[in-house]
């Protein structure tokens, strides 16, 4: 007995290390991306205010750049609005149809997306799993699965909300996944980040007969129930034929993920209806 105690005393350092390390590895191996998001949300609850203060200082020094970007965006929106505005003089004799009046009288209009402004208070890009924290939470109308975009293009989507903060999956996260298409074409593929550079993402599964060139614009598609269609993702930097069947395209992100500051969170108003429908079809097929 005494020998055993002496032996245990001799190896207690090693034993303790094995036990603690085993516990840590057990926790790590059983962690999912959901666990990590829960951790980030919980720690934001503790130090979110401090993050907000720090990023406030940071964004103060970026006001000039931010202003210029806003004016540019305003000009662009004016141009787009002008292009959309109907030439009333031409249609003056055309009576409104029933469908038109329904569209005009419906309070929601033809609107499918609702936009919320928010500020990035915490953002990393040097890790393999990067998350972004926004200064708006559930009380401000945020909910999981809202897209997050900046004036330049996609940024990520919301994963989880506390009362005053939201944690988003950054484009720069190896678990990020959405679809992208080549502007002007119907070919699409899936977008993911390979974890190497914060400036590039990969667009894969583009059919080999798709006409693709360096500099082509890549936009989001209609297939996502998160991102609105035709949001800028980036431009084609290079592409490579894989297994002689599909292209793997290196896409330069249009958003500078290292400097993203003010963003828009986009709520897809039909998301629930669409997901319920898609789910019901999947369910009945499974039976």
């Amino acid at each position: 007995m005494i020998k055993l105690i002496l032996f245990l005393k001799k190896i207690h350092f090693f034993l303790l290390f094995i036990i603690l390390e085993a516990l840590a590895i057990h926790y790590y191996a059983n962690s999912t991306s959901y666990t990590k998001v829960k951790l980030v949300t919980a720690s934001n609850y503790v130090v979110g205010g401090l993050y907000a203060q720090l990023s406030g200082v940071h964004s103060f020094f970026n006001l000039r750049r931010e202003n210029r970007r806003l004016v540019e965006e305003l000009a662009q929106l004016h141009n787009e609005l002008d292009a959309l505005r109907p030439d009333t003089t031409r249609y003056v004799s055309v009576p409104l149809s029933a469908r038109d009046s329904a569209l005009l009288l419906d309070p929601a209009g033809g609107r499918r997306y609702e936009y919320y402004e928010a500020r990035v208070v915490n953002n990393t890009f040097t890790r393999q799993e990067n998350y972004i924290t926004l200064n708006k939470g559930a009380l401000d109308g945020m909910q999981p699965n809202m897209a997050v975009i900046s004036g330049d293009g996609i940024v990520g989507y919301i994963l989880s909300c506390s009362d005053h903060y939201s944690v988003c999956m950054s484009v720069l996260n190896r678990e990020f996944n959405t679809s992208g298409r080549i502007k002007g074409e119907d070919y699409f593929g899936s977008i993911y980040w390979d974890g190497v550079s914060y400036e590039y993402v990969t667009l894969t599964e583009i059919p080999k007969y798709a006409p693709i060139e360096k500099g082509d614009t890549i936009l989001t598609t209609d297939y996502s129930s998160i991102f609105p269609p035709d949001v800028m993702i980036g431009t084609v930097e290079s592409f490579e034929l894989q297994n002689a069947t599909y292209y793997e395209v290196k896409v330069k992100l249009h958003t500078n993920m290292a400097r993203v500051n003010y963003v828009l969170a986009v709520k897809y108003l039909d998301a629930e209806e669409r997901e319920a429908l898609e789910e019901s079809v999947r369910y009945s097929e499974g039976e």
Partner: protein
Amino acid sequence: MHKFLEYTILFVAMVLLQVFLFSRIGISMYVHPLVYIAFILLLPMEIPGGWLLMLATLLGISVDFFMGTAGINTISTLFVAFCRPTALLLLVGKDEVKDGGVPNVNRLGLKKFLRYAGVLIFLHSALFFMLETLSWRFFYVTLLRIVLSTIVTLLLVYFCQRLFAVNRPGGYRSTE
């Protein structure tokens, strides 16, 4: 008691600096300095093994909580704590360890300190980045991240140990 207070401050300072500064500066895609390990490196040489491992666990869990990394920091910090006594014996020498004290530049000399800290920081970064990547596909990118982060961390740890009071011989503030 004096010592206890000093190390508590060092612990808190290291976690805060790591979370709010070093993990956020984003020098480059390849550099993510994990400076908080300085706390483990600067513990007195005569600390009992059990304490060393417990403190390493506490440190790892704190950093994991704020970084949202679910265990990676705890695993690599514990491993460094486990290797520390051996590293001290092999790289610093039996006599120095017997005398005790804080293993900093004043106590060990620059060359020995850099050797000791460098090896442990390398082990820490290697484990951290390999667990984070969990793929051999970008082996060389990961290797580059490990090497560059180790160099930057070593530099920052060098400055940290100079800034803290534990830098003084014996680990206490003395009139200079």
